[in-house]
């Protein structure tokens, strides 16, 4: 069990838990197709603790690092 932030950029992982993500962010992530079981990957991280981008099925999303750090994932 690891968080999305601990994965190597560009590698596909499967979401296992989103419970500790900010509630509204979790809703939006769901709207964009990021749910438990989705396959996503971490792409870029901005400097100075800024946001990071994730990719799901060709769609790119930027979220804060804190939220990315609360997405639990496992390797696929």
């Amino acid at each position: 069990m690891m968080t999305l932030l601990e994965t190597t950029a560009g590698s596909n992982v499967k979401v296992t838990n989103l419970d500790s993500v900010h509630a509204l962010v979790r809703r939006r992530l769901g709207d964009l197709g990021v749910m438990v079981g989705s396959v996503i990957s971490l792409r870029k991280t901005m400097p100075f603790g800024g946001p990071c981008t994730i990719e799901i099925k060709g769609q790119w999303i930027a979220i804060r690092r804190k939220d990315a750090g609360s997405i639990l994932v496992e390797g696929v």
Partner: protein
Amino acid sequence: MIKLALTGNPNTGKTSLFNMLTDSYEYVGNWAGVTIEKKVGMLNNKRGQLIDLPGIYSLSPLSRDEGVTTLYLLDETPSMLLNVVDASQLERNLHLTIQLLEYGRPVVLALNMIDVAKKRGLNIDVEQLAKQIGIPIVPVIARTGYGCDALLETSIQSSGDSGIAASPRRFDYGPVLEGAISRLEAMLPKELTSARWLALQLLEGNIPVLQKLRQYVDPVQLQACYVETEKLVQETGGIRLADYIRDRRAAIIQGWLQQSVRETKEQHTTLSERIDAIVMNKFLGIPVFLAFMYLTFKLTFDWFGTPLSDALDSLLNGFVRDNVSSFLDSAGAAAFIKAVLLDGVISGVGGVLVFVPQIFMLFLIISFIEDSGYMARIATVMDKLLEGVGLNGKAFIPMIIGFGCNVPGIMAARTIEQPKERLLTILLTPLMSCSARLSVYSLFVGTFFEKNQALIVLSLYVLGVVVALALAKLFSFTLAKEEESMFIVEMPPYRIPQWRTLSRSTWEKGKGFVRKAGTFIFGGSVVIWMLGYSGFSGWNVPMNESFLQTIGSVISPIMQPLGFGNWQAGAALITGFLAKEVVVSTMGIIYAAPTDAGLEGAITQFFTPLQAYSFMVFILLYVPCLATVGVIRSETKSAKWTWFSVIYALIVAYIIAFIIYRAGLLLGFH
């Protein structure tokens, strides 16, 4: 009258389609949340109305703009729904389609962006998909107009259909939910047509639906039903109610797509990724943005705008003025009429019109940022900085739009989810230097800072942003601070803006400026000229004894410490509240009267370079213009915040102009 409503996820091309089908021009841009209010247009074939709505992911709104769409569906009954989906992101788009099918009006699917899908290697069997979902699907490319005629035809046909298509679709949500839905349905009065849809939306946590149902049913009962269902779902499935509903829908969509969509290409690095490697680079992100801004002003001033604007100036003040003058002479016009036209209208309106080239150039660049896909990237690059002052990266989007004009900028703040962050953004967007202020800068930098025009103007834009950030920090301490900040944006692929879109969008923005010059500023110039022509001793007094001088003198002593204590500056500032360009008209009228040396020559007698800079800083910050104050009022719905926005700006402008002027003097500038 047939009413077709455009619904779909954000940034799927609804407005592009609207423009094609109604032959109009509404605001298009490549990021999520461009359209923020309802727009109605007449279909090309005059058979009915088309309604463009803000994009939504689901019918439960998170932000203001999304609420507009939900309320539209709750309060009105469109003849049919035209569901625009992005073919390259079918799966997530279809979640909304299911909710629309449940709503109970005929739905036609516009499968947009098939060009993008094809490039991605997605092979969509349209016929098969239409059979699966059970509604007509028309592939289109809203950008080029491909398929639009067929879409219109199909839509009109199905809007006349009152049979099966017009009744709500039922999808099975499993025993627990079905039980809750029937209980809720039983509570609702018979006259509500789409009871099942309302019940489901309520269970999804849709706030506007809850508010509507409260009118009919005891809120306590509704609440009890929701809580009970939530608990049951949690117990049986170990998952949240909203997630459960989403999962059920995902399963239905999987079923549809399995048989109709095939991926034929391996994913590889896209062009968007390569561009992002530069513009969102760890170290280059913010520098690239600043360089882009600098380039903007270089283009606007040095390379393109100013030369054209000079040519326009000599045309207006030479050819046009001479001809009008000789025409009036030959027509035997009274001296009074001649003075109104030459010294009032041509000096006032002409003074503003000469800056049209600069302003169009700026609008062209803003349109480019909007339509390329860079907007969401800037928001991301800026997020950390903005988080530090109590905002989020999305607040930068209204601010960039505000560089063109503050009014649409403030309205764009509707897409910000958290109320406090939205309020802060509304209050601070007026500090973004808009195109009207650009005309004031153009006048002054052209006169005093000929060598460094772009740099001086860039410094003012940056100053506006820095002051906004500092104030955000200050205000977020004092305003409600319990709310937790959030940030999430969808990053669309880059698209090369079409020349047609760019030119239309530049013209739509610039048109307002020209129109304002022809109406508001025209009228204002006549009034200002009259004030300068009359005084306590009667008509045709010297400018120095006019009412204008009296008015300007009231505030000039207050402005003395800032370096521009002359009555002319005072008069320009007061009239500038109407619209910031009026500052230029007023100066044109005041200074044109006594000398023939031209406006630029005249102002050098009244300002030193440092005083001019201090004056520009004051103009940048001092009060939002009348139109902006109006939109602050309507967006905040609060007189208190409206007053606040005017008063804080005055105070801040005074303090900062004071510091800059005094520091400049100490450093030996003059």
